[in-house]
């Protein structure tokens, strides 16, 4: 089964973070990716720019264009900062994988809907 690991943390502008801290964070993710590779787990992932850079489209009403607004869909203290999609045997395995994954304030695990099954 495939799962998305959604990594939440307080908004961070990684460009503005001191280099040593940024390198340390990247190293943690490199270690996680090494773990995934050592287990032969298929994966994909990306880090997101902070939610202050987000743009949200909302339906403005029937027969009207979508409304373009500044900011994330939901304003939270912590935001989605990055994600991985991993192949895991089951939820227990996905939890085990997520334990190895660096995270800020929490990791949400969601199964992907497989339209082909």
């Amino acid at each position: 089964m495939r799962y998305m690991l959604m990594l939440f943390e307080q908004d961070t502008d990684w460009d503005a973070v001191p280099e040593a801290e940024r390198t340390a964070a990247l190293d943690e993710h490199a270690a996680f990716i090494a773990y995934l590779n050592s287990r032969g787990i298929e994966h994909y992932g990306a880090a997101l720019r902070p939610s202050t850079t987000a743009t949200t489209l909302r339906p403005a009403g029937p027969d009207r264009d979508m409304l373009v607004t500044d900011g994330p869909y939901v304003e939270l203290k912590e935001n989605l900062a990055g994600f991985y999609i991993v192949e895991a045997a089951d939820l227990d395995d996905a939890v085990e994988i997520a334990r190895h994954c660096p995270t800020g304030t929490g990791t949400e695990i969601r199964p992907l809907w497989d339209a082909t099954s």
Partner: protein
Amino acid sequence: MGRDELTDAVADAHRRGWGRVLATVVRVTRDLDAAEDAVQEAFAAALELWPDQGVPADTTAWLTTVARNRALDALRRERTLARKLPLLIVPGDDAPADVEPIEDERLRLIFTCCHPALALPARVALTLRLVCGVPTPDVARLFLVTQPTMAARLTRAKKKIQAAGIPYRVPAAHELPDRLPAALAVVSLLLTEGHTASRGDSLRRPELVRTATELAEVLAELMPDEAEVLGLLATVRLAAARSAARLDTEGGLMPLSAQDRSLWDPALIEDGCALAGRAMRRSSPGRAGPYALHAAIAAVHSEAPSYEATDWTQVVALYDLLLAVAPSPVTALARAAAWSHVAGPAAALDEVTALAADPRLHGYYGVPAVRADLLRRLGRNAEAAASFAEAAASTANDVERSYLLARAADPAL
């Protein structure tokens, strides 16, 4: 065969077999709803066929065969239909199902229903429905919600198991510290509710106690070295040992202080205290878990020759340990009640007054009940009567209410 005889036979088969049959059939269907339907049909078949064929010697085996066949038929019929949910993940399913001991089969079901990725109310509801075979309307009644609400909750929980890929398996030893509390909480909730029903005209709900007992026994059989499992089973045994003394001949409540201890079952006390001792010895020093500590408290009460001669200092010390590992206002209240026998009712009354400010205890009948007892011992009978009346108004259990009302009428009773 008479109608009653048949009903009894099916009820007995249901009680003993439901969980085992379902646990086995789930491996065939790999779909919880389909398995439930098949088991339901097998019981319907029993009602239809047993009057003529007679009750089979091994009802569980008979029901398993019928349910499995019904499930396979249904699978063949529905093979062409689009599947909405992914199948249940059954790790290590290469081994033939017949080889594995049947208890392990049920344990898989317990650990799947008690997965920490499910909320506690969902876990309890699923365990009652799938492991114990309690009909959905009865589960709804237990939770004080309507039947459609409970049906929706069960559906959501079953859907999550399959959609999120909660595996159908017994956790490995190294996973148990994470997984066990979620399962023990379910058994404990059943035991608490069975011991003193939160509402209704009976003090106890024996069917829930029986279910909790069976679950605790299965867990202890499979994990004989787990301190917390032993603690839970000890609590089950000690509650059973004392249950006969909890009601007087007219069905009225007898509090611990007034119980005729000669009615306690000495064999169960011995067994329970031995289990409680093992639970404490198996705990890391100074770090006993909540179930071992609850058992230890029950053991101190069970070994006391009388209420007055109870080792209250020891009870308070155990409550302090319990509050350190599992803080709870209800435990703090119980500690205050025990403390009153060490420091006197006046000191304990101050503590109860402070605790009553905790919003989590608002409306909990235990607060005025404990306060009433302390006031009575202080000779403040009018206030005691008012508190007993307040406690009576806050419980929905008829037996408890009658007792509290009697005390309100005569606090010195």
